[in-house]
């Protein structure tokens, strides 16, 4: 034994024990796992929450010094980002300018033209300011942040934003900081608007950048009520020099004193920006997440055969996610701080760790034999897959190890995370998922038990499980013969996934809840990321709503008296601008103004004339009103990122500028006066905010109503079903919504009624059909040939010995045991006489049989009334004559025949002593007008179907023929002893003289005969199906064999089942499906003999198998119909039937499945898994149903049903 094998066995054993452990103590293990997950995730609490909003930190100006890079432990309140110098210092000069006193001769443009014009002189002043002291001479050039090129994508901003110099931004940038350009500009507003982006924009606009205050506060518009223009000159400094800034501040204040300004100047604010996630970065991220979800979806879709698919899928996802969290937590615990962007690498980690192991585990456990104990199943499933799981894990670890040696830090970190994630994932799989799986399997067993028990006890209605009807409704058409299994509306409908999702959404009101939660989250995020913005916005709203003249009135009493004071002081202040050098004496009278609140009463008389310049607390940090992306976007124009860095904003320098009306008129552009005066600016201004509010409200309401209507329509369209009233919807669905409508077929209720073919005295044993004719054989050995279209009985081939002997045998008197050959000869001559006129001959034959009925029906007295009343078109009196011709059309072709092989069971009324039964027909085939019948004595007979004459027979074999296949000129017979005989039928003459050429004797006739009996004697060939020149047999020795029809050579022996083969299907595509007693279904490729897929679907035998072009349908002893996808082997869905209702299957069209079981025939819609109709119920144990349909399917599929 090699080391590998030893290792493998040890691993397998360990997994087995582990599986036992997990399944034995599920609850403690789950508790333990949860505890360990929580423990490992605990360090994550210390990680900062993700967010993009900037963080602020305020320090004093006086004792400011650039923070050092090293973290200092003593300063507890300092945030950890406050290290090192900031990217830049921002010095804003906040200018408020107004023309005062306001003159009625002034035009609206004057409100902002001359105040804006003043920016150029201020700029000059700032640029040329020089501070000199003992340490040297400093100018702005040496201190400011020097910028280079603009970002390449911003060519059109080149004219506006500064390049190759100081980053100094002001409204003057619109005119290249040149007074001449400004003066010659005819339309200032147009120039400003020119650079605004079209449509919606979220980030800071150019106007905000240059003005430094939000657009609505600038006052640059024609409708400015306050007539105060506000803008800033923003100076970006690279280094901080307190003395220079101090002198600049003093200088500006001296030039333009702001009298009533009490702004605090002792605080500087440091703003730290998080990693900016722009939409461009979001797109790849979103894409990876979409791919991730698709991966998870496609993976969890494969979970099958469990009690709760969604539960297990959730468990799988939880496993992976919590393993990731654990890995991050563990890494944090051991001091590895994650530097990677978690959101970005997360999908890749999930993909690396993968859901495969979980799926493999589930599949393995599910495919263990169902009759085992749950514990053992889990243990077995685990140990089966142990080797592959370990191998995969080792491979992945190896790959990650290789990745670790790339020595790239980012990849190394990723690999570290992945390793820890893999290990924790393994841990969770072993402990968490396995336990969940064991619980699930146990639940399934319990449900199974519950469902089985009442069925076996014979309790009729109360069946727990998904199929239980809420109440038993009266059947829609109460007739003694129609039994609905359950009313379709009450069935657990197998709807398509799309509809199920919609139903789910509709049922749980998921969309509404998600929208609600989303809104709440969104608001929360807004508040979380931009608290200052919302607060200032709200504050602004409040202040705007207050009446005119109020701002600064009640709240700020010291400012009240400003206007009258200034009126007097105007000339001096305007004059003081030009003679800059000499310091303006600090006017005492302005301070007096503060003491005159009594004059407040005079104020309302003059408000329109005098614009007030007030300085409030909101001006102190005016930048707060800007978008929080303001600074990042300004810097990003120069390709400087602020992500994870901070800037320091220095206290603003207030500048108040008052201009005289003369000055305003002087600076006018000639075209300004031509500008039309604003149409009733007052009204519009007053109503503007209100109107906006109303508009928004109306729009919101309309949108809401529209949305509700849309959702309602969607709901009505997608969910036409009325849950409460089954009757109405039932009818509607039947007529209109059937998918079969594509094929021009809809099964109307009235047209499907079976045609009753009567004549057999005993249970029907075999059935064969070729579309035109239908041959049936009963237990008594009598063969009848029917016209499949009309239901006429054409020929009766009685059993050797005749019907009368049968009846004798039935009566208990043993009939004479005649030799077989004699019988057949006698019979042949007997039928041979009336070979000319089939029909006339056929009727007398049946008439002879008709009188038998009463005697037989003594045993089953309740049968006749049951049958007859069902068919309204056929009067019961019709029985004696020909089988009734119903008033409807039959489908022309009966496509398939089902050979129900049932060994002659010693039922109650078949006396085993009678020797006649030994030669009963076990298998029958009909081709053309030839009937091949294989008898239990091993005799093969060939009858003419029309004439009822025996063409030939072969008695070489002694073992009973269990299955027959008749194709072209070949007959293949499988015998009880496992031998397979190939016969050739030779048609020499057009007169249909037949001759056997093939003989089971070895080598007797050269060309074709063959005898192949490789099987052990005990094994029994149960099925043989043929197609495309191949004969396929399935036997009790667990093998499927494929023979070639021409030379009867065994091509393949397919092994894969662990039980006898019970069902086989093959079609022209050379795909073979086989089902066995082990409940497994195998799909094989006949050309290569390879197994395509192997699935377990049933508990117990697979009784029947049918394939359509897209799916494989199987039914089993567990009354379950499973529909599998043909190419992938994935189970699409399964239908649970009532006990004994699904013994055999047939497919009429692509989407119509027919099941016939003990006493009922059901139609199923394959696309939906929906029960269409249960046709009829007959209390006959051995009912065989055959379905014919025309190829065009315009006609109704008819159902032929027979009983004795």
């Amino acid at each position: 034994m090699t080391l590998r094998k030893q290792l493998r066995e040890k691993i397998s054993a360990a997994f087995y024990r582990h599986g036992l452990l997990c399944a034995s103590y599920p609850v403690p293990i789950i508790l333990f796992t949860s505890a360990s997950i929580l423990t490992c995730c605990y360090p994550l609490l210390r990680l900062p929450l993700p967010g993009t909003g900037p963080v602020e930190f305020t320090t004093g100006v006086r004792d400011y010094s650039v923070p050092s890079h090293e973290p200092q432990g003593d300063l507890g309140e300092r945030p950890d980002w406050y290290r090192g110098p900031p990217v830049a210092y921002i010095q804003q000069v906040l200018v408020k300018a107004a023309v005062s006193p306001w003159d009625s001769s002034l035009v609206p443009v004057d409100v902002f033209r001359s105040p804006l014009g003043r920016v150029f002189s201020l700029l000059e002043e700032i640029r040329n300011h020089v501070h000199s002291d003992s340490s040297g001479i400093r100018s702005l050039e040496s201190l400011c942040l020097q910028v280079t090129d603009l970002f390449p994508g911003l060519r059109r901003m080149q004219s506006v934003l500064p390049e190759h110099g100081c980053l100094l931004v002001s409204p003057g940038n619109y005119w290249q900081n040149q007074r001449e350009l400004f003066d010659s500009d005819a339309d200032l507003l147009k120039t400003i608007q020119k650079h605004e982006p079209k449509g919606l924009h979220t980030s800071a606009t150019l106007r905000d950048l240059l003005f430094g205050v939000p657009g609505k506060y600038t006052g640059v518009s024609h409708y400015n009520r306050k007539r105060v223009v506000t803008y800033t000159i923003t100076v970006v400094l690279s280094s901080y020099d307190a003395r220079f800034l101090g002198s600049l501040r003093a200088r500006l204040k001296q030039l333009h004193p702001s009298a009533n300004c009490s702004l605090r100047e002792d605080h500087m604010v440091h703003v730290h920006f998080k990693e900016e996630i722009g939409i461009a970065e979001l797109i790849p991220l979103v894409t990876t997440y979409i791919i991730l979800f698709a991966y998870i979806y496609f993976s969890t879709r494969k979970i099958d055969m469990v009690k709760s698919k969604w539960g297990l899928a959730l468990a799988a996802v939880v496993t992976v996610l919590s393993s990731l969290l654990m890995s991050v937590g563990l890494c944090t615990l051991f001091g590895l701080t994650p530097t990677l962007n978690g959101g970005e690498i997360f999908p890749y980690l999930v993909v690396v760790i993968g859901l495969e192991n979980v799926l493999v585990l589930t599949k393995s456990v599910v495919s263990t034999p169902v009759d085992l104990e749950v514990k053992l199943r889990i243990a077995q499933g685990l140990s089966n897959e142990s080797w592959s799981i370990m191998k995969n894990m080792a491979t992945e670890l190896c790959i990650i190890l290789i990745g670790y040696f790339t020595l790239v830090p980012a990849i190394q970190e990723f690999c570290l995370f992945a390793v820890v994630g893999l290990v924790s994932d393994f841990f969770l799989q072993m402990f968490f998922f396995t336990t969940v799986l064991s619980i699930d399997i146990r639940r399934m067993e319990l449900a199974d038990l519950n469902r089985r028990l009442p069925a076996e006890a014979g309790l009729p209605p109360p069946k727990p499980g998904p199929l239980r009807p809420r109440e038993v409704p009266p059947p829609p058409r109460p007739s003694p013969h129609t039994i609905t299994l359950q009313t379709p509306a009450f069935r657990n409908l197998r709807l398509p996934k799309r509809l199920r999702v919609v139903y789910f959404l509709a049922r749980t009101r998921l969309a509404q809840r998600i929208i609600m939660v989303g809104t709440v989250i969104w608001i929360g995020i807004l508040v979380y990321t931009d608290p200052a913005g919302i607060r200032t916005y709200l504050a602004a709203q409040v202040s705007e709503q207050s009446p005119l003249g109020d701002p600064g009135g009640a709240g700020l009493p010291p400012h009240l008296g400003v206007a009258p004071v200034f009126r007097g002081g105007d000339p001096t202040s305007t004059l003081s601008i030009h003679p800059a050098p000499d310091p303006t004496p600090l006017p005492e009278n302005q301070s007096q103004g503060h003491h005159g609140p009594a004059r407040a009463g005079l104020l309302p008389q003059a408000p329109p004339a005098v614009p007030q310049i007030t300085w409030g607390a909101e001006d102190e940090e005016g930048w707060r009103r800007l978008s929080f992306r303001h600074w990042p976007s300004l810097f990003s124009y120069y390709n400087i990122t602020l992500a994870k860095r901070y800037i320091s904003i220095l206290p603003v320098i207030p500048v108040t500028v008052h201009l005289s009306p003369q000055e305003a008129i002087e600076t006018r552009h000639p075209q300004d006066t031509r500008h039309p005066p604003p149409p009733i600016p007052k009204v519009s201004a007053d109503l503007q905010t209100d109107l906006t509010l109303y508009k928004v409200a109306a729009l919101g309401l309309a949108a809401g109503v529209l949305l509700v209507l849309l959702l309602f329509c969607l709901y009505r369209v997608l969910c036409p079903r009325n849950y409460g009233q089954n009757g109405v919807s039932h009818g509607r669905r039947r007529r209109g919504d059937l998918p079969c409508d594509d094929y021009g077929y809809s099964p109307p209720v009235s047209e499907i009624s079976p045609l009753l073919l009567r004549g057999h005295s005993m249970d029907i044993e075999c059935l064969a059909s070729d579309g035109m004719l239908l041959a049936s054989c009963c237990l008594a050995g009598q063969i009848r040939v029917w016209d499949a279209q009309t239901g006429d009985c054409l020929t009766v081939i009685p059993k050797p010995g005749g019907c009368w002997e049968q009846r004798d045998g039935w009566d208990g008197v043993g009939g004479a045991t005649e030799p077989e050959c004699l019988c057949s000869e006698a019979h042949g001559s007997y039928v041979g006489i009336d070979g000319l006129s089939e029909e006339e001959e056929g009727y007398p034959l049946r008439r002879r049989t008709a009188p038998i009925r009463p005697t037989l029906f003594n045993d089953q007295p309740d049968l006749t009334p049951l049958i007859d009343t069902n068919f309204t078109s056929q009067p019961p009196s019709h029985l004696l004559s020909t089988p009734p011709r119903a008033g409807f059309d039959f489908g022309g072709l009966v496509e398939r025949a089902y050979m129900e092989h049932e060994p002659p069971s010693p039922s109650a009324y078949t006396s085993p002593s009678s020797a006649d039964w030994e030669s009963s027909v076990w298998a029958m085939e009909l081709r053309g007008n030839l009937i091949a019948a294989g008898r239990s004595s091993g005799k093969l007979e060939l009858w003419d179907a029309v004439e009822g004459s025996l063409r030939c027979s072969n008695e070489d074999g002694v073992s009973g023929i269990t299955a027959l296949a008749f194709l072209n000129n070949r007959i293949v017979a499988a015998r009880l002893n496992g031998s397979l005989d190939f016969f050739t039928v030779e048609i020499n003459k057009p007169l249909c003289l037949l001759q056997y050429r093939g003989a089971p004797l070895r080598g007797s006739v050269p060309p074709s005969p063959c005898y192949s009996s490789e099987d052990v004697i005990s094994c029994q060939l149960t099925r043989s199906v043929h197609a495309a020149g191949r004969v396929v047999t399935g036997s009790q020795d667990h093998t499927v064999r494929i023979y070639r029809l021409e030379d009867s050579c065994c091509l393949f022996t397919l092994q894969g089942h662990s039980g006898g083969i019970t069902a086989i299907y093959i079609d022209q595509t050379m795909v073979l499906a086989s089902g066995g007693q082990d409940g497994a279904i195998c799909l094989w490729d006949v050309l290569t003999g390879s197994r395509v897929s192997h699935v377990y679907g049933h508990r117990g035998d697979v009784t029947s198998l049918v394939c359509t072009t897209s799916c494989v349908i199987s039914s089993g002893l567990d009354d379950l119909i499973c529909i599998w996808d043909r190419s992938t082997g994935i189970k699409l869905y399964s239908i649970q039937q009532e006990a004994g209702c699904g013994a055999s299957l047939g497919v009429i069209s692509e989407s119509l499945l027919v099941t016939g079981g003990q006493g009922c025939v059901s139609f199923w819609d394959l696309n939906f898994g929906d029960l269409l109709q249960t046709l009829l119920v007959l209390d006959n144990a051995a009912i065989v149903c055959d379905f014919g349909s025309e190829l065009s399917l315009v006609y109704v599929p008819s159902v032929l049903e027979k009983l004795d």
Partner: protein
Amino acid sequence: MSLTLTAMSDSTVTSGRQQWSGSGQTLQPPRGPFISVITNRTTNLLIRGAMLFSVGVFLALVLNLLQVQRNVTLFPPDVISSIFSSAWWVPPCCGTASAMIGLLYPCIDSCLGEPHKFKREWSSVMRCVAVFVGINHASAKVDFANNVQLSLTLAALSIGLWWTFDRSRSGFSLGVTIALLATLATQLLVYNGVFQYTSPDFLYIRSWLPCIFFAGVITMGNIGRQLALYEYKFIQEKSHQD
């Protein structure tokens, strides 16, 4: 990345067209409008091509963004528009190339007579796409010490991708061939000045090109094969009908 698929299209257009131009076939008697449309081979081919095309365009746009991010740390608001406007022909070319490759792979599989059976599931395909995006991500976001390291890492990753999701020799050889041809075509384009790299570091770009090409070819082939499964199914159905 944009450059990548462009070149792919150049190299595969010639080979792909001829093989698939004559594959149209008349339709069987109808069984329903949808089924018949699906069953029609030409239509099916067109549908598959369209799907592959859209996937290619989408990936090209997204990966283009990733590559642009390599040089830009932060996006000014109008960079996105400039991305979409600068080289409008790049995404369609990528789409065409991916359609060609996605159709070529199953064709070659059927020509060689060895159907690809390794991991034919959508989940595996999704995993493959995710790894491909991850490789692009790594090449765009991770800072490598030098070019050799970058290209070696990327090569290892690409081969790992092939080994994990493909493992077919035909896929490998086709991938290598197309990658080489595409790199060559790209170089020619750049020499002739049709296309320019945003980053002037020429050698740097060249080092990661073939690996990305290779990974892209493998991914697209994977998607194409998975899509071809459906066609196979329908052809089966048709022959069954016959």
